[in-house]
């Protein structure tokens, strides 16, 4: 997914964010681990004023950290207001954990300052890269799954976790290419990175579905192979289908992870099967391109909440080797 654009300066005629009361010295209302096992939504610029004014019933919010790394201004001020009413998760899109050249120390310091300021309940980044030779390519680019890349990823995660002084979550990517010289499947790469660095996992169910289609692997086998006890957050999102003609002129499809639509039924189904193994878990509805009105986003989150509530009534976290618990009927929940 290209990193969404969120850098517009609002026109002076737009409605002002509510001016804040004086800030207390520290915002300690929500500590770590405070993200509830409910549905959250990605907080995007067009919705911030409305969230502040209407305080919709949503379990938590996730921001893209890079949109708040300015030294000040209205955007940070609005975030500090939002933070009083909602648990917040900081999701990074620019750290480039997979870069062979290592992490940008200035960027780490800016992120650390943001985390100190708003004390997010969770912090996460992607198993991908976006920086090469100092240039930021504004996309979450795929890694080859090699021992060398794994060692680089782990070194970078260790570096970031030591600067932040806390555990990170790493998210499985969506991708359109795979490398001929990869030495292990993606799930093994993810699991091994978590094992070596002690980081947790952010399981993006849409990304698994997208990559499974694009690289012809079995999404359920992927989930089954992961250490699910390390999963602390799940993402769901929309994607679209692009058609290419192969050399024989036959139509072939690639799923494009644009976070620009409602969640596909197949992704809700996979989410339901994941929940059956995982139990209730903080679940984020991501929507980044063609961002709709807030109620549309909240309606998607409500679907996730209903599935989560249903799962809460079912025993979770199966012991390895024990058959899975029955999968609830997702169609029924959505009616």
């Amino acid at each position: 997914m290209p990193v969404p654009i969120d850098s517009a300066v609002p026109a002076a005629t737009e409605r002002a964010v509510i001016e804040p009361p004086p800030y207390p010295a520290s915002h300690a209302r929500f500590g770590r681990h405070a993200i509830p096992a409910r549905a959250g939504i990605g907080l995007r610029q067009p919705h911030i004023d409305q969230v502040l004014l209407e305080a919709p019933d949503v379990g938590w919010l996730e921001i893209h950290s890079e949109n708040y790394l300015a030294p000040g201004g209205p955007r940070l001020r609005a975030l500090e207001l939002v933070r009083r009413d909602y648990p917040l998760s900081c999701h990074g899109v620019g750290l480039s954990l997979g870069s062979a050249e290592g992490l940008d120390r200035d960027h780490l310091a800016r992120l650390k300052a943001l985390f100190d300021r708003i004390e997010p309940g969770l912090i996460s980044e992607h198993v991908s890269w976006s920086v090469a030779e100092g240039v930021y390519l504004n996309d979450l680019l795929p890694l080859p799954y090699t021992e060398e890349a794994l060692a680089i990823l782990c070194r970078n995660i260790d570096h970031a976790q030591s600067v932040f002084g806390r555990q990170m979550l790493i998210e499985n990517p969506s991708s359109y290419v795979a490398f001929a010289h990869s030495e292990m499947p993606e799930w093994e790469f993810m699991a091994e990175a978590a094992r070596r660095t002690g980081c947790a996992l952010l399981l993006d169910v849409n990304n698994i579905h997208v990559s499974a289609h694009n690289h012809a692997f079995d999404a359920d086998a992927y989930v089954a192979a992961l250490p699910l006890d390390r999963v602390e957050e799940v993402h769901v999102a929309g994607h679209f289908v692009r058609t290419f003609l192969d050399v024989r002129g036959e139509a072939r499809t690639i799923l494009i992870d644009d976070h620009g639509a409602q969640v596909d039924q197949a992704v809700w189904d996979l989410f339901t099967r994941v929940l059956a193994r995982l139990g209730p878990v903080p679940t984020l509805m991501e929507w980044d391109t063609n961002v709709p009105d807030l109620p549309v986003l909240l309606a998607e989150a409500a679907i996730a909440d209903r599935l989560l509530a249903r799962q809460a009534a079912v025993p979770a976290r199966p012991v390895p080797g024990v058959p899975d618990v029955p999968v609830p009927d997702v169609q029924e929940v959505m009616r």
Partner: protein
Amino acid sequence: MTEKAAPGTRGTPPLADLQARFKRGLLTGDIVDATALILGGAVEPNDRFEIYRNNTRASLAQALATTYPVIQRLVGEEFFRFAARQYIQIHPPMVPQLLAYGGEMSTFLAHFPPAQSVPYLPDMARLEWARTQSYFAPDAEPVAAGRLAAVPAQDLSAVQFGLGPSVRLVGSAHPVFRIWNAHQGSEAPSFKGLSGPDYTLIFRTGSHVRVEAIGLGLFAFLTALDQGLTLAEAAQTAVEADTGFDLQGGLTTALARGLFATLTPPAP
């Protein structure tokens, strides 16, 4: 699992090499070295790589269009996209934050041959970039008017003011403020027959960035204060630039808008 080769041997490129090849492919379109590493399957490696290339180019062009909306309206979407693609190759982002991307647009346009027929574009880019910088600038408490009143009369002329972090001054030989202003509505702008110069003050109040036209005298006055000159020296500079400069009016304008972040009386 396949046997593991040490990086760089037996056709396995080190990760740094792979990333350099991808970067070159994404920015320049020279994709052969990158696609050689990609598995095909149902869809060709070139088609797969192009998805990333389109993502990178389209999203960076979109980021530039977001920061430079008036430039885009002035030159049209097609020309803007063309210029953005050149810009991205020459000035790719060096900081992983889109809100910091695009600061070289004015310099780029000044040297971009296809843009030479519109001489005010570089100054318009300075104005639009100043607006973004003002929006994301650090917060600062403005100096209240009462602070100046408390300075003993004999010290007034040697007082120094520091401009707030969100304050930007854009001077241009072209009528860039009026052209910018004409593009703030949704209706087709009319700015024929305008001529320069324009002096523009940009600053933030509350959540909003304000853009105002000011006179040459006030522009010279604020610029001089920003350079560390004293009140008397800045007033002198302003009068030399514009004999009609009104010090009392200029100070009132500046204090009412909260343009000053510091007031430093002379050392005793």
